[in-house]
């Protein structure tokens, strides 16, 4: 079974703190993603990476950065946390879209990290 593990299920931080969210996958997936889930807004893509040291902005990258130093690990960084970053953060991984035989876009998600910024 594919396993995507997020380091913290629940975090409480103060405004201005630096926050690290870690994600590790064990399926040798090339692609990794960070989404946030908010009520009424669904899942919105923050950043994604299709290779080590490669990253691309998603739809809402402002206030976030990422790091991918190893293939299995993808970190999301909030340089200075703000209250509007209180959310559920979901990490996911997948193979590249090389056709239907490789799943063609199926993402495997971690259990999520619930971040509260006070």
């Amino acid at each position, binding site marked *: 079974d594919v396993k995507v593990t997020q380091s913290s299920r629940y975090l409480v931080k103060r405004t201005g703190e630096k926050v690290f969210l870690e994600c590790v996958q064990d399926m040798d997936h090339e692609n990794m993603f960070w989404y946030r889930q908010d009520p009424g807004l669904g899942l*919105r893509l923050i950043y994604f990476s299709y290779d080590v040291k490669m990253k691309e902005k998603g739809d809402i990258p402002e206030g976030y950065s990422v790091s991918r130093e190893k293939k299995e690990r993808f970190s999301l960084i909030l340089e200075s946390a703000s209250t509007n970053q209180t959310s559920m953060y979901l990490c996911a991984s997948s193979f590249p*879209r090389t056709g239907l035989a490789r799943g063609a*876009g199926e993402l495997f998600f971690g259990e999520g990290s619930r971040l509260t910024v006070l």
Partner: protein
Amino acid sequence: DQQVKQNSPSLSVQEGRISILNCDYTNSMFDYFLWYKKYPAEGPTFLISISSIKDKNEDGRFTVFLNKSAKHLSLHIVPSQPGDSAVYFCAATPDGSSNTGKLIFGQGTTLQVKP
């Protein structure tokens, strides 16, 4: 600009009846569509998918229909069971030729199946 829309925030059905969840999209370049199911305090899990070259895909109690001309897809669950109660997300991949595999998600529909 919401490219994938689920206009019904919630749906309630009786156990044993059909559940129909709807999804609309605006981008004609989307070529692959997926449904995910999410329980509280868990990550979403893949449910079923459909390629734009098909109009129907079936997997047990779950069937997804795609109407490309209307840019609309729907998920049918028959018969519905209480364990199906969850949030359902529709997703589409906009990368027809690239391999990044990123997905654009809708807002989600909360399904409640009553015993």
